């Protein structure tokens, strides 16, 4: 199949997924905003009102929002993409399509949805008195690299789940692990041991990306571009490897899905 047809089909599938997603629930596309907002409210309730962690409440909500919105995008999309080939068992057995089509459609759809969430984030920042700055343009490479990371992880996850369904149990556990270790409700930069902090930022690319979100949006600082580029390169390399694997083993993956 031609590349052009592939991307055209990808786009149509992504739009259809969006449409199906919003028509399934009564509140429709409002859930794209409600879910992130609900999470942040819960965090605020727990960390500010109940635990009274003493941070300036406004800043802390922004801190949570930046981290949580980015993490939600990563975790929900990678989880959904990983299960997408197995979920489309019917189609896999009927058409000879590149297996990457299904996870890519899910991830492409998430990009459309997440763009509205980022707009919501900007709105929240403005509401809390953060003045819009030119430095926010750094979000463009940050979001691009985030998307690349999601693609790499989603494609690998999709292959793994095809090969063994057990990975469908492993992936949510991995996401929970990342939820706690990526500095979403604690600040990596405030760790007493800064060496530990650096180690975390280096070994956990998600922690780095979340920190980058905060650096740009809250402090107007450019992220560490070298580190960002390295993550981008690694993600691109993994993506290329996985796509090549999926192409060569398309029929093997189909057999695994169907049996």
């Amino acid at each position: 199949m031609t590349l052009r047809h592939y991307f055209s089909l990808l786009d149509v599938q992504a739009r259809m997924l969006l449409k199906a997603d919003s028509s399934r629930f009564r509140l429709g596309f409002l859930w794209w905003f409600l879910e992130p907002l609900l999470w942040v409210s819960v965090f605020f309730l727990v960390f500010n009102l109940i635990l009274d962690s003493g941070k300036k409440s406004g800043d802390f909500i922004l801190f949570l929002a930046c981290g949580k919105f980015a993490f939600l995008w990563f975790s929900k999309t990678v989880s959904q993409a990983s299960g997408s080939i197995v979920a489309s068992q019917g189609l896999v057995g009927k058409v000879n399509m590149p297996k990457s089509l299904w996870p890519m459609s899910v991830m492409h759809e998430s990009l459309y949805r997440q763009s509205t969430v980022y707009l919501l984030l900007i709105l929240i920042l403005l509401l809390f008195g953060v003045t819009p700055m030119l430095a926010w343009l750094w979000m463009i490479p940050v979001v691009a690299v985030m998307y690349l990371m999601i693609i790499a992880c989603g494609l690998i996850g999709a292959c793994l789940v095809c090969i063994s369904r057990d990975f469908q149990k492993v992936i949510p556990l991995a996401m929970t692990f990342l939820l706690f270790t990526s500095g979403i409700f604690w600040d990596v930069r405030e760790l007493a041991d800064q060496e530990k902090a650096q180690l975390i930022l280096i070994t956990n690319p998600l922690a780095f990306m979340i920190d980058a979100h905060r650096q740009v949006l809250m402090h107007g600082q450019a992220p560490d571009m070298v580190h960002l580029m390295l993550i981008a390169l690694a993600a691109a390399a993994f993506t290329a490897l996985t796509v090549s694997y999926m192409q060569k083993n398309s029929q093997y993956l189909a057999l695994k899905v169907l049996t």
Partner: protein
Amino acid sequence: MLELRDVSLDFRSSKGSFDHGVHHVLDQVSFKLYENETLGIIGRNGVGKTTMLRIMAGILAPTHGEVITRPGASASLLTLGLGHRLDLNGRDNAVLSAMLQGASKAEAMGYLEDIKAFSELGDSFEEPVKTYSAGMKSRLGFTTALLTHVDILLVDEILSVGDAEFRKKAEEAMKQRISGKQTVVFVSHSDTQVKDLCDRVLWIDQGRICAQGDPDETIARYRASMKK
């Protein structure tokens, strides 16, 4: 056009079942498919007919043996309901199905009115597929399936859809496709359809070819074996 040589397909199933946990779906199947002929495949349920079609369509690869296709020949598997998304309406599903079968977006949009007319879905075409009856879903599936233009058409039991009137229309349309310059492999449980449409017939049982050749003869042998 297409040849299968000693093709076998195994897969691992739960331990203790089949042959030490290995299900031999196809066992040393060999046959040739010639250009412009209509080959019928008959056999009971579960003998490997769909698997064979999937191998011919390139969806699955054999565990042993080889599949030799004429270079540049395209194959497409025609089954009902090409993965309908229940939350979307008939129109959107038709576009998606057409594109999944190789049409470009522009072509798919162009076919829409024809699909609506042929499937006789009327206003339901704009309603979510989850509200469709089974017959309506099959009509939608069949109509979009008719659009494929490939060298080798692999038809998996799709002419048993709809009410009697629609079935007549469907059979006519299928006959037109098949009698033209089209290589077809046709799986069906209906003896009349097979005798009517096929030049040659293959009888498969337990993953092996039991007989092949003249439609009347092969069908007779198949029916005889069922009576035992």
